[in-house]
């Protein structure tokens, strides 16, 4: 399948295991789950991006897209976003905020920091699966990621 061949690496930052499971299920349904790295808080996500701590030995290259939750332990999503967008190397990574919150102030803050997309997780599972699928297809397949991104 062409999609699989072109699939970029997805970095998911999500602390809730259920959300991780549901998201992965949705991605699997469309064969998008092969290259998904899951980090459980902001610190871990930054460790991954900077190849430090437990990710010291990871293969090099940035993810093709990052799915970022906002409410995270330790370092929250907006801080992670701020860190990425103020780093010369990391700022090119497309970041999609994927959150439960419909709060306008989060949305405004995210866009001000330079987020590439802002998606509110729908309560309805069908809609959720569709949203994840479209995100995965667009960012990991259709979109040409910046140079240096990892592609399978």
């Amino acid at each position: 399948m062409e999609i699989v061949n072109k699939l970029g690496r997805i970095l998911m930052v999500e602390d809730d295991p259920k959300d991780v499971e549901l998201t992965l299920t949705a991605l699997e349904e469309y064969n998008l789950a092969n290259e998904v790295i899951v980090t459980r808080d902001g610190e871990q996500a930054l460790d991954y991006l900077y190849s430090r701590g437990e990710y010291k030995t990871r293969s090099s290259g940035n993810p093709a897209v990052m799915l970022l939750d906002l409410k995270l332990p330790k370092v929250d999503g907006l801080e992670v976003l701020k860190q990425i967008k103020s780093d010369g190397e990391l700022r090119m990574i497309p970041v999609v905020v994927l959150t439960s919150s419909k709060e306008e102030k989060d949305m405004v803050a995210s866009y001000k920091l330079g987020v590439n997309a802002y998606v509110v997780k729908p309560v309805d599972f069908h809609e959720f699966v569709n949203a994840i699928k479209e995100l995965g297809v667009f960012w990991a397949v259709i979109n040409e990621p910046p140079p240096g991104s990892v592609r399978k």
Partner: protein
Amino acid sequence: MARSNLELQIARSPLLRYGLAPLSVSVALGGSLLLGRFHFRNVADPLFLFAIAIAVWYAGIGPAIVAVVLSGLADTLFFIEPLYTLYVTRDDLPHFVIFVLFASLLTGFAAVRRRVERDLVQARDHLQIEVAERTQQASLLNLTHDPIFVRDMGDVVTYWNRGAQELYGWTDKEAIGRHSQELLQTIFSTPLEDIRAELLRTNRWEGELKKTKADGTQVVVASRWSLRQDDQGRAVAILETNNDITERKRREQDIQNLNQELAKRSMELESINRELEAFAYSVSHDLRAPVRHMAGYAEMLQKKASSVVDEKSNHYMAMILDSAKRMGNLIDDLLAFSRIGRAETQKTLLNLAQLVKEALTEVQQDTEGRNIAWKIGALPEFYGDRSMLRLVMVNLISNAIKFTRTRPQAEIEIGCANGNADDLVVFVRDNGVGFDMKYVHKLFGVFQRLHQSHEFEGTGIGLATVQRIMHRHGGKVWAEGLVDGGATFYFSGPKPQGDLWRS
């Protein structure tokens, strides 16, 4: 007075004045001739002098000179040898000259006396006028309600007007002559030495003082002092005007207290608002997540197991999904409702007819397959937040559509009702299932519903949202209804005030 009146009359009439001279001289001449008959000697000169004195006394210098001349002539004619001629011998000359000189002296004395008398009268009249003026001024000071009193430099009260009597309770008779400090027990906010220094330097001082009335109660007065000086510039008295500001001070204190209270309340409110915001934020994140998970897992279960479980189990799973979805809607509506309370309103002049048109487009899909007769009247311009007012119209119209669902021919009317001079009233009327007025107070509460959810779906937040929006616009919402007889929802808001709003 009578005498001076007579004098004045004589003085005013030249005929009388100059007539007095020949008259008095004639009388003196007659008297001298008569007394001469009885051999009295040397009576003519004293009598002529007497006549001259009368003339000068009552008629002034001019007539006196006339009298001197006439007396001299009469004396020469009738009493100096040779008689009946105007010839005067050398021997008689000294007698004649002395007579004239004495007469002149007499005239001079009289003239001085007259002048002195005239000056005295003038001075008296002047004094009378001044007394009248002063009396009038003093009574004017009594007219004012402001307490005014004067005290000398030894603090003794010398004047006390009626205003002072009314405020402090002592009459002028009781107050005058007493030390003002002993009377009023003034409490100074500034040291007295400073006040005195300023008074001597600038002639005035003003400030707030506390004084005690005759009945012992304390008053706060706005006090103005003016220094009175004599011709040499020495301070002689202090005029003090007082204004009772006790009530004003009390009100100022009240206002200050209220302001403090208000500041405290608004701080409390702010903190409550912050808490509320944090709460809403947390609801938005944390409450939605488990609902989403429930829906997600139930769906996955349904997918996996629907073919192997019985119909009842499938129904249960469907119900779980349905509930999760409903919970999601409730949370979203509740958050939207809370956002209306927190969001800033951006008010402009709105075309309500246009808003209604937009609202109708938005609810179009609810009207599909329905038979609805719309009756939309003329609608006014309304001053408010566009998106909020639009939400009001959408909520009211979709309610009307929803609750007329059982009607084969639904009728929905939107129009402008007669408000008062300051308010606009807009209504949305339907011929739907209506409601019992007994429960009208529950209509606008959050999560309050008057129908069972299997009859008419809904979260029970729409009307609460409408009410909250109208309250934020300084308006009102109310409803009238009849079970099975339709319902009318009204909202009102301030009328746009001409150009003020357009700018």
